[in-house]
């Protein structure tokens, strides 16, 4: 009996050993497989040096190459699959020094953990970087005094090995521009980095159709002239789009959602921004949808502000316009202090029941925004615990004396200009109907049996 039981066990162990042996032989015979990648990486620099100016260097898609390498002549480097360039040295994996270089379909892994050091450093003009995949423990692609470059359809992923909890200060930026003008950043995916796209002192950057998530700021512009931020998305960052010290920015068609975990989170943050256009954006489920401080003469139009804790916050801002937008299901729709001459017109406010006497679809009553709570918490932040406290409107009402300096929508729109959200899943609805009906029926039954009935 015992033998019969033991035999299958022993047989299984033998089979496993045989499989292991075959696997080992196979691994030993196949050259250049993942197992020995680190040692067998081919140095990249001699291959680049051997490529004539204007030529193309094609890297084998299944082989690892070793950085760092400097490209100082206009060549194309591409791979027939996704060649992997690995770098452990102190220099960037790739440095672009000549104008007109093309990088295509490369994968770069940089293992240096220094947020100031990029995997790819661009110091020249008119280069085209396309379909790259960068995994980095430091920075992604940094442009320094580099103009007219294109960075397209690439994927940059930052430090993830310690989970998404790595301190932001230990991460590098995804794409970082410094004194670099007229660059185009399009169709990229940026995640687990410090800032997805960081633009400083660089004019006319075009940032389009990118995605940034799980980072500090999705898109961050500092002291740069006329940047364009269009049709990008940002989720779960501290702040989706942060624009600071900028004139003439165009922020259009972006979608920022779920920036709500951090106590400083916003969808769009405009700080010291002037004469810019912020149009057709949708900010949803953020801590603050649109935050403006020290911003003047900006035109905000057709923005959708939905389900944020605070829809819009305006501090020390003047001369801005906010038109044809919608504020829906925000816990507090808007707050404003120390701001004047801001014009709100034609916005839809879902908590407002207006009065339309002439039938033009706009209310003849104005929508007024009470600054009481923001004023209260500005001095003593601890009072933020009273957010939405049921007794607070009672207090605010008592202080409601002079409303002339309040932020007001002079002509609130009475029906939302935007199509409503997709309906909730039907299954959810039927489940809730059944559950609520059961709750109702059982409470009635108990009331009847133990409450109402005699005996």
């Amino acid at each position, binding site marked *: 009996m015992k033998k019969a039981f033991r035999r299958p066990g022993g047989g299984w162990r033998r089979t496993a050993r045989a499989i292991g042996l075959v696997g080992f032989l196979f691994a030993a015979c196949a050259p250049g497989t993942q197992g020995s990648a680190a040692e067998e990486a081919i140095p990249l620099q001699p291959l680049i040096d051997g490529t004539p100016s204007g030529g193309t260097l094609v890297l084998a898609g299944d082989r690892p190459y070793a950085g760092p390498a400097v490209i100082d002549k206009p060549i194309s480097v591409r791979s027939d699959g996704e060649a992997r360039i690995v770098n452990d040295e102190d220099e960037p994996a790739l440095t672009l020094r000549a104008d007109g270089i093309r990088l295509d379909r490369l994968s770069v892994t940089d293992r240096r953990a220094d947020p100031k050091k990029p995997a790819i450093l661009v110091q020249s003009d008119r280069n085209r970087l396309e379909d790259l995949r960068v995994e980095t423990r430091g920075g992604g692609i940094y442009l320094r005094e580099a103009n007219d470059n294109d960075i397209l359809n690439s994927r940059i992923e930052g430090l993830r090995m310690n989970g998404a909890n790595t301190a932001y200060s230990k991460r590098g930026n995804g794409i970082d521009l410094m004194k670099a003008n007229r660059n185009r950043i399009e169709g990229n995916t940026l995640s687990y980095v410090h800032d997805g796209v960081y633009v400083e002192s660089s004019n006319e950057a075009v940032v389009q159709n990118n995605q940034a998530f799980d980072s500090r700021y999705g898109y961050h512009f500092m002291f740069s002239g006329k940047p364009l931020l269009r049709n990008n998305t940002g989720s779960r960052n501290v702040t989706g789009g942060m624009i600071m010290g900028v004139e003439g920015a165009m922020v259009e068609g972006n979608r920022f959602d779920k920036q709500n975990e951090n106590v*400083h989170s916003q969808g769009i943050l405009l700080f010291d921004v002037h004469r810019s256009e912020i149009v057709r954006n949708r900010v949803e489920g953020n801590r603050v949808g649109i935050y403006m401080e020290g911003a003047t003469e900006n035109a905000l139009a057709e923005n959708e502000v939905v389900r944020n*804790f605070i829809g819009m916050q305006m501090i020390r801002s003047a001369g801005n316009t906010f038109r044809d937008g919608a504020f829906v299901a925000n816990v507090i729709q808007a707050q404003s202090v120390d701001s004047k001459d801001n014009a709100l017109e034609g916005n839809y406010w879902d908590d407002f029941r207006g009065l339309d006497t002439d039938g033009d679809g706009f209310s003849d009553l104005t929508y007024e925004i009470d600054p009481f709570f923001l004023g*209260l918490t500005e001095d003593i932040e601890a009072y933020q*615990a009273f957010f939405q406290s049921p007794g607070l409107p009672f*207090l605010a009402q008592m202080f409601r004396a002079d409303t002339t300096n309040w932020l007001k929508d002079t002509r609130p729109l009475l029906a939302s200009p935007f199509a409503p959200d997709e309906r909730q899943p039907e299954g*959810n609805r039927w489940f809730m109907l059944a559950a609520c009906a*059961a709750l*109702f029926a059982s409470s009635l039954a108990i009331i009847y049996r133990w409450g109402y009935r005699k005996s």
Partner: protein
Amino acid sequence: MRQTRTIALRELKLGFRNPWAYSFMALFAVFSLALVLIQSQEGLSGYTSTTGTMINLMLYLLPLMTLLLGSFSLTAEKEEGGWQLLSSYALSTSAFLSGKYLGLAGVLILIVAFGFGLSGAIGAVFGHAFPPASFGLFLVFAVLLILLFLGIAAILGAICRNRWQALTYGVAIWFFLVLGWPTLLIALLGFLPYLWIKPALIGLIFANPAELNRLFLIVKMGGGSILGPEYYHWVGWIERPTGSLVFAAVCVLWIAASLGLAIWVWERGRARG
């Protein structure tokens, strides 16, 4: 134990003979139904204006309802001679009050279940159903509000001589803890040095079941970041599963302490006749 059970069942029966129970039931059901139907379909999940309004409805109605029904039930025993009769049996004050507490909790929870069930079902028919997670949190929030305020109601019932007195005190306590709370605190805390404000405020929040519950619910609905950097650690701590356990412990402590105090006051009254 059997005494407590008997008193609780009797309380359940008495509770639903009381027209006040039905008027509160109607009030709560009608208002929650009206709110569910007014709201747009956007914002039914997470912390939004829709869910915020529901929270406020509960904060306005449930504490008042609990304080009045709870304290009336106890003072009625004194006024109508129920207690005089019961105290001629071998019935301890603690068994009596615990039974009253459990029975009243049953009555109030049934009122809330009725209101939520009705408004939820009709809301679902009209396509305004809350997602199960939000709905579940609301139910838990409502039950906790009832259990904590019922503790206060028990103390109130033990102190007051008749229903009029209970009504006056009950409304005053409700006003103090729900409506006037920010006004009073902001006025009082203004006298403290800046650095003391936050610790004092947190201490006072633990003394007010309405605020304690409300903040806990907001954090659990994912709205913790709105409380700002001052409460960063508190929020992070409540968000963890251990936060719920500790919160549950705080609630149990609250109920035990208030019920204990009520029993002590009642005992004192009994000893003095």
